[in-house]
């Protein structure tokens, strides 16, 4: 069963045609990865799903329901959370406040949910009172992912979680995502092919605002011709 489907989605940003007919699907409870070079439209795909750069045509279905006409702030309420490329942890808020701001129902993070988050990212416990601007890059990334876990959303869109991280942080992010994957469907944008291939189930390779090829990750791992052609591995 597919949790998300996109059919021939076009998106313009400031007059530029960025997505030129994206068609892709993400299977429920799997980790789907978007690969492709810089500027191929991966981040715009994520932003278009979230309604932040709305699609000008095409269809986006979440659990079978059309969402491409919904307003950006309505989309998270369907059960979709995003970890944006720039992490976007609020610098004047503490880590705790960053997490609280994400809570949609009620005023606090449920105890059980907080335990789950701290289980995945133990270091966050000691960062609670620290302001966003005083966090390291790796800490910001943890907080950004943790913030997307606050509401038990079914679909997580995660944009380049390993960008600029030290190898040891990349490894702990891999373990975290492997854990999160047990409970939620993930669509991941990633440039690091080795990282991607170690946790993904399905892949879509984007080029010039379209999907160039897709399939099961095992097939890509063994197909060096495609890796060279689209990823420059």
């Amino acid at each position, binding site marked *: 069963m597919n949790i998300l489907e996109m059919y021939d989605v076009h998106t313009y940003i400031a007059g530029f045609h960025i997505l030129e007919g994206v068609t892709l699907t993400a299977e429920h409870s799997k980790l789907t990865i978007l690969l492709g070079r810089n500027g191929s439209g991966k981040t715009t795909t994520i932003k278009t799903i979230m309604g*932040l750069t709305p699609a000008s045509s095409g269809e986006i279905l979440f659990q079978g329901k059309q969402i491409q006409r919904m*307003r950006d702030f*309505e*989309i998270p*309420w369907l059960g979709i959370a995003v970890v*944006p490329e720039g992490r*976007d942890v609020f610098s004047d*808020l503490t880590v705790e406040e960053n997490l609280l701001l994400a809570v949609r129902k009620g005023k606090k993070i449920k105890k059980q949910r907080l335990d789950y988050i701290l289980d995945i990212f133990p270091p966050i416990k000691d960062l609670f009172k620290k302001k966003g601007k005083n966090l390291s890059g790796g800490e910001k990334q943890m907080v950004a992912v943790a913030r997307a876990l606050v509401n038990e959303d079914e679909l997580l869109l995660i944009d380049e979680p390993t960008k600029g991280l030290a190898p040891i942080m990349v490894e702990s992010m891999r373990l975290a995502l492997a854990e999160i994957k047990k409970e939620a469907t993930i669509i991941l944008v990633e440039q690091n092919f080795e990282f991607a291939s170690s946790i993904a189930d399905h892949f879509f390779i984007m080029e010039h605002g379209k999907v160039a090829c897709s399939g099961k990750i095992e097939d890509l791992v063994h197909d060096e011709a495609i890796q060279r052609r689209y990823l420059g591995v």
Partner: protein
Amino acid sequence: MTSQLFVNILLSALSLGVIYFLLSSGFALVFSLLRVSNFSHGSLIMWGAYLGVYLVEAFSNFTLGLVVSVVIVGFFLALVEYFLFRRLYGGNPLFELLLTFGLIFILDEAVKLVWGAALIPVNKPDFLKGTVMIYGEPFAVLRLYILSLGVVVCAGLYLLLKKTKLGLIITAGIENKEMVRALGININKVFTFVCWLGGFLAGLGGFALAYFTGLSPEMGASQLLNVLVIVVVGGLGSFMGAAIAAVIMGLAEAFIGFYLPEMAILSSFIVMFIVLGIKPSGLLGEV
């Protein structure tokens, strides 16, 4: 200078600083979240003054007149946000300039239509008349009243911004609106609220000012200049910076006014000259 005199000037300076804080905080708040330079802020201050004084007399009740008038001025700016500002976000800032300047003409002429162009002296209610002795020197009750009003407003704003979810949204929205929306928050509603609050603060500042200066149809324009100087000294976009700048302006005006009375009128520009000379982005400005 005796220490009594020093304390007296200091208290006067602080009450002046509080008025400046009330006058400029609404502008700073609206600018920092919406990035709209609301040049009609001075005219809202004037409306707060005229409407407040009028309603206090109409109701024969100081508190009721105060509350009703500032709430109305707040609603006015909220309506302006909802019907006008909202169409201009992300567009050419020149349109905002034209719009808010247009509002100045409408609001200022409306004051003259309703209350005339002459200066109107304002009678203080009995409980604001007279002086109390503080540290052996007489001190006007009115100034004490303004001081406590400022402390209450400052504490209220602090609690709102730091201790409520709405405050978290405002702080987060100042930095990154897109991420706030990506968390499922309708930040447009928060914009409307912040404009209401901005109008409320302008009205309150104007109301307080009226009991010092009386009413004049020129007060909007002259206060706009004060507000702009304070906001620039504080650092554009920094609400805290504006609050600190307001207090510094009050201190400078009172102390320069005491030692060099002929320079008092220039005091805010002297402060601006010094602060921007050392830090061109203003006290807490980052740009």
